């Protein structure tokens, strides 16, 4: 296998958790809700997924447990911001603070235990093609799932009636309510979907990316995924593009660190975070302000009967 293919495969693996988490958050934000609890839900997904997979011996059980855990946390968030109309920023932060602690509690018993990573798919013949075989036909199942997710969400938002409802709820909840659209139900479903995606993204970290659990293993990926949604102007295909760009930057940084170009390692480690800020600034240069974000993003909705 030539070196370029190996590098590109690591780019795909670095991008996939960001992609899954960001796609989930994109749906939530298009419905008008800002969930800053992404980092916390990913962390709990990672620890629950690893714990369940280790205890049951089945990776599938681990993945399902992570999805359930992410959705359960997001249900708590929904209870606060939809049921009680609390401030979304503060509630999301609370969810992240709680999630990071909870993930430590769940994972504590599994520090130091490792397991086999979920293996990549093998299609006889195709996976052995030179140059592109492993890259295109030999990734792990989550990679294909995340790509299907991107396509599915693109179709859902732009082509389906339910997607139109979701977008109108996010664009102007008062008008949507006046039209008789179930604002709260739509948002609840969107939040649960976002939580499930965050849990899945967390499971990818602890079951595929690094097949062990360690405290703080999400390392800000939830926040980077949140930034990706803004970077992508709330469009699924741009999230896909952004996630792969970002995965590429991460891998570049790792290789630069290994090659020790004379920079302190901390400079290289800071690179993804600085790159995120730069990316957000560059994106904002090219567009008129506030023209792209969903109109009702981050505001509570209390129907006046």
């Amino acid at each position, binding site marked *: 296998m030539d070196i370029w293919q190996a590098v590109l495969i690591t780019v795909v693996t670095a991008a996939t958790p960001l992609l899954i988490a960001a796609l989930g958050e994109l749906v939530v934000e298009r419905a008008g809700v800002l969930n800053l609890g992404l980092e916390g839900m990913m962390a709990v997904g990672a620890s629950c997924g690893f714990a369940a997979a280790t205890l049951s011996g089945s990776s599938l059980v681990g993945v399902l447990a992570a999805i359930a855990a992410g959705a359960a946390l997001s249900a708590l968030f929904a209870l606060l911001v939809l*049921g009680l109309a609390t401030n979304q920023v503060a509630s999301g932060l609370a969810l992240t*603070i709680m999630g990071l602690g909870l993930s430590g509690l769940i994972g504590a018993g599994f520090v130091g235990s490792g397991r086999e990573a979920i293996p990549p798919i093998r299609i006889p013949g195709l996976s052995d093609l030179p140059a592109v075989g492993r890259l295109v036909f030999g990734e792990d199942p989550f990679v294909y799932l995340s790509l299907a997710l991107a396509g599915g969400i693109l179709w859902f938002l732009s082509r389906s009636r339910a997607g139109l409802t979701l977008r109108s709820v996010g664009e102007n909840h008062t008008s949507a309510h006046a039209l008789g659209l179930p604002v709260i139900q739509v948002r609840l479903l969107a939040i649960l979907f976002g939580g499930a995606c965050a849990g899945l993204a967390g499971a990818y970290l602890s079951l595929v990316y690094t097949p062990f659990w360690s405290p703080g293993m999400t390392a800000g990926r939830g926040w980077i995924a949140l930034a990706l949604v803004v970077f992508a102007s709330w469009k699924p295909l741009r999230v896909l593009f952004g996630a792969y760009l970002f995965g590429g930057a991460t891998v570049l940084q790792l290789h630069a660190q290994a090659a020790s170009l004379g920079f302190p390692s901390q400079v290289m480690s800071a690179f993804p975070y600085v790159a995120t800020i730069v990316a957000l600034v560059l994106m904002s240069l090219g567009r008129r302000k506030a023209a792209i974000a969903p109109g009702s993003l981050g505001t509570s909705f209390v129907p006046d009967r």
Partner: protein
Amino acid sequence: MRLELVPRGDVSPWARALAPVAAVVAAILIGGLVVALMGRSPLAAFQVYFVDTLSEDWGLQEMAVKATPLLIIAVGLSFCFRASLWNIGAEGQFIIGALVGGILPLYTAGTEAGAWVIPAAMVLGALGGLAYAMIPALLRVAFGVSEILTSLMLVYVADLTLDYLVRGPWKDPKGFNFPQTVNFDATLPYLAEGGRLHAGVLVGPALALLAWFVISRTLFGFGVRVAGEAPKAARFAGFSANRMVIAAFAISGAAAGLAGIVEVLGQIGQLKPGISSGYGFTAITVAFLGRLHPLGMIFGALVVALTVIGGESAQIALKLPLDLTRAFQGVLLMCVLAADALVSYRVRLVTVARA
């Protein structure tokens, strides 16, 4: 089946003031449930977390010491949160404050420099935090970039900067290769012989009083409140939104930076990784627990400090992990937000769909 929120209209100030107390009680009950689920005695945990610390002299002193950085940061953050601006990077501003403020005591360690180093370091620390907070503030004003994401990203950058300095140029040459600086000579004096209370504990309450005066008695404070509660009215009244972003971030950044250098000069006495242990994030809980009221935040800081110390004791006495405390702080913040909503709204469970 769904929940319906009915505004209560006039709510007595007492109910609002008591909501955080109810939230603390609710959070303790949930915490006890979790401890029970972990197969431990909730009563024993409650004893270690809340009773032991409060019933002993060292515990009370330790509580004031731990509450200090939390209170200083929270007082600063309250200006942002009141104006509906979201500086969630106080953790980074705290670290940069400690670094910039730490330059003077670092380079005067072992020399005959006088006591002037301490106030000068505190001023530098505040300025360092302020300057670091200007990055998200200016990016928002100039480019409209979300301050939430930029301020948070800068926490990681600050953390790595600290890590680089104490492992690299600032490392103590006689420190057996530990990632830490030399011990500073310039440290805050203790208020009483043999106690734990350093002079920095006075900074928190002093700032809280100052903030109370500014918020409730000055035109600027009025502008902050209007910006948060009625942004349109603020615009018509001629308050500049951009200037508000800069001012609120300047105040919260300076406060977080000051908290950083006070913590270093009063508690730690050197720079090393982990000087903060998450104070910048915990202070968010403190700010909301105090309902963003300067005097309420004194209560909030003491309660949260109590859980921090209780968490450390419980780790030793009951082998309960520190993460329990972090999870508890998240639950507490959720309970505070919920309690506030329950004071403002009546919640009705509607079981039959209306026609």
